[in-house]
């Protein structure tokens, strides 16, 4: 059953739960962004270090981290959407 926006804030308890869920999702996306920034910073440092030694790029370790990075991006977006929808539609559907 789909809850309307007003139902999500219909009582103090419901408002608390809605705000808590919202804060958790925002913090999660914030952490995700900071992690990506840190990852790209480290990757730039590694590339500079490899270039100083005469190699073009780190090769296999970089490919592996790219694969994991894309899985991380895809799964984070997917889980954020699914858990948000699950909360808005409420778990009656389970």
């Amino acid at each position, binding site marked *: 059953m789909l809850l309307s926006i007003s139902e999500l804030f219909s009582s103090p308890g419901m408002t608390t739960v809605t705000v808590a869920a919202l804060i*958790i999702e925002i913090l999660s996306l914030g952490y995700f962004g900071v*992690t990506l920034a840190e990852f790209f910073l480290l990757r730039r440092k590694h590339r500079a270090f*490899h270039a100083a030694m005469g*190699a073009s790029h780190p090769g*296999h*370790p970089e490919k592996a981290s790219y694969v994991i990075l894309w899985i*991380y991006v895809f799964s984070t977006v997917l889980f954020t959407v699914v*858990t948000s929808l699950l909360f808005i539609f409420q*778990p009656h559907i389970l």
Partner: protein
Amino acid sequence: MASALSGNGEKVIRVISEHWIKYVFPCFVFGILGSVSALLFLLAGYTAHHAMWLSHLSFIAALLLFLLTHHWFFTKLLGETMTHVIITNRRVVWIHESIFQREHMVEYAYEKMKTVEAKKSGIVQTVLRYGTIAFESGADIRYVPHPNHVAKEIEQAMGMR
């Protein structure tokens, strides 16, 4: 991988990633905590009609546990994939990374060492073909795939300097 000479005459011979065994423990923990959060999501669903407060509490707990586990797991994995060993004609460099926690680079210059030792201990390391590379000074490098072969390459590189 390209291995041109750098300005100071250093040449990268090989870049080695650590063995996949290091991912087993994080995957195991992720599986356990992911299952617990899935059970909490199910509890939230089953109690939605008759105990709304319990349903909401379980949902928030499940969400929090799941997202914490998810971010911990991928942060750990991303850090681990960036950890690698570089063998050049002058030194071995071990770049040991962990996002937000550790940025550690250890250098083993050939000038300061005479031997390198490969160690495999136990049936797991023998079967899965990984082990430790030990130097005369400095920390040992663990989770090296085919350590005997790597040690031989390092010895050959030591002869090239």
